[in-house]
């Protein structure tokens, strides 16, 4: 099955629960099979699958709960905490996988998913736009803000840990 392990990993990050992630992946494949006739050969298969998974999550109870805290259109609103981060502080955190995982968990869902699609899945901005259903300009601004928020979380964690 193509993308199976990657979809599962992405689903775990969205749901923060392995059992819910399994249900989400299963439902994604069922929907993909049912809707396969609507899949156009000239479109991006990976973006199509991730989009199904994400939309399924957003309409689930956990997804509704996650998106209730922050509107997906809130790119203009400041979402990251104030920080005094410096490049050096990022370097201090770079080797700490656990710190990065905690920072990812702490990110709002719409920031977390875009960081995962870009940094982990290595999707192009165009693919991310197709997956999330947003224009490329929004991809760039949301990604920039998501990374800033993550740096701030890491810097706060490093400062907190060193105190």
């Amino acid at each position, binding site marked *: *099955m*193509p993308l*199976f*392990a990657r979809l*599962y*990993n992405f689903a*775990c*990050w969205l749901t923060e629960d*392995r059992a819910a*992630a*399994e249900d989400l*992946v*299963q439902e994604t*494949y*069922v929907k*993909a*099979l049912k809707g*396969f006739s609507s899949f156009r*050969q000239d479109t991006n*298969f990976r973006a199509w699958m991730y989009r199904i998974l994400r939309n399924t999550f957003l309409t689930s109870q956990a997804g509704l709960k996650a998106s209730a805290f922050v509107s997906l259109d809130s790119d203009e609103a400041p979402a990251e905490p104030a920080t005094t981060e410096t*490049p*050096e502080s*990022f*370097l201090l*955190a*770079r*080797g700490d*996988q*656990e710190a*990065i*995982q905690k920072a*990812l968990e702490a990110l709002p869902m719409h920031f977390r998913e875009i*960081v*995962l699609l*870009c*940094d*982990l899945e*290595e999707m*192009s*901005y165009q693919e991310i736009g197709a997956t999330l259903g947003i224009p490329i300009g929004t991809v*760039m601004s949301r*990604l*920039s803000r998501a*990374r800033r928020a*993550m*740096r701030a979380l890491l810097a706060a964690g490093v400062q907190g840990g060193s105190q």
Partner: protein
Amino acid sequence: MSCDLWRDWLDAYMDESCTPEEAAGIEDHLRSCPSCAADALARMQMKRATRAAAARYVPSPEFRLRIESSIQKTHKPFWKIVWVQGLAACAVALLLIAVSVSLWTRHSSREQALAELLDLHVATTASANPVDVISTDRHTVKPWFQGKLPFAFNLPELDNSSFKLLGGKLIYYRHSPGAQLLFDLRKHELSVFIFEDQPGVTPPGAGVATTREKGFSVETWSEAGLRYAVFSDAGPADVHALGDLLRAAGRQ
């Protein structure tokens, strides 16, 4: 441009989403600005670290089996459908190409054979001695070919028609012996070529085919193992009328 503005571009640069010109501009700035260079390096390391840290969850083999079996129960794997559809499209394309090449080759072979026979017809009509046996009598012309050809053919009775037999001669076409008969119709000369029907030698085609070849009317057909071709500068209807007479004689 200030460092703040350059830093807005660092993410796109790191994600390889800049144009070559934009990337060149950023690289120029990074070479001259240690602060931005350190920021770019930190962002790259962060991206790399995020990639490693985010690959955190691995599905269990049981879950994979469960999904596979539930999908196979009801559906053919759809990623296989993509491949099958792709393969089917390739097969159809190859088939179309093969048929096109075959038709083109066949068409090309027919065109070449007709062109060679047309040359023989033109050379005959231009010759001072167009035929070897000069006679308007079919009972003189037909026996003349006895012993010269490995086949026999019938000539039509022309008393009640406008056609007149002028004679005939033995020809060799693509190393095969054949008969060339010359007819007259209102000052137009018509050549009738008769060969044994051999694929690759005689002009290919099915049924009675009337065409135009460089302004000449041409009709070809096969009958009783023989391949016939009529050439003339007369109209297609006249060529077809002579063809009808020859076909009727061939069936006798």
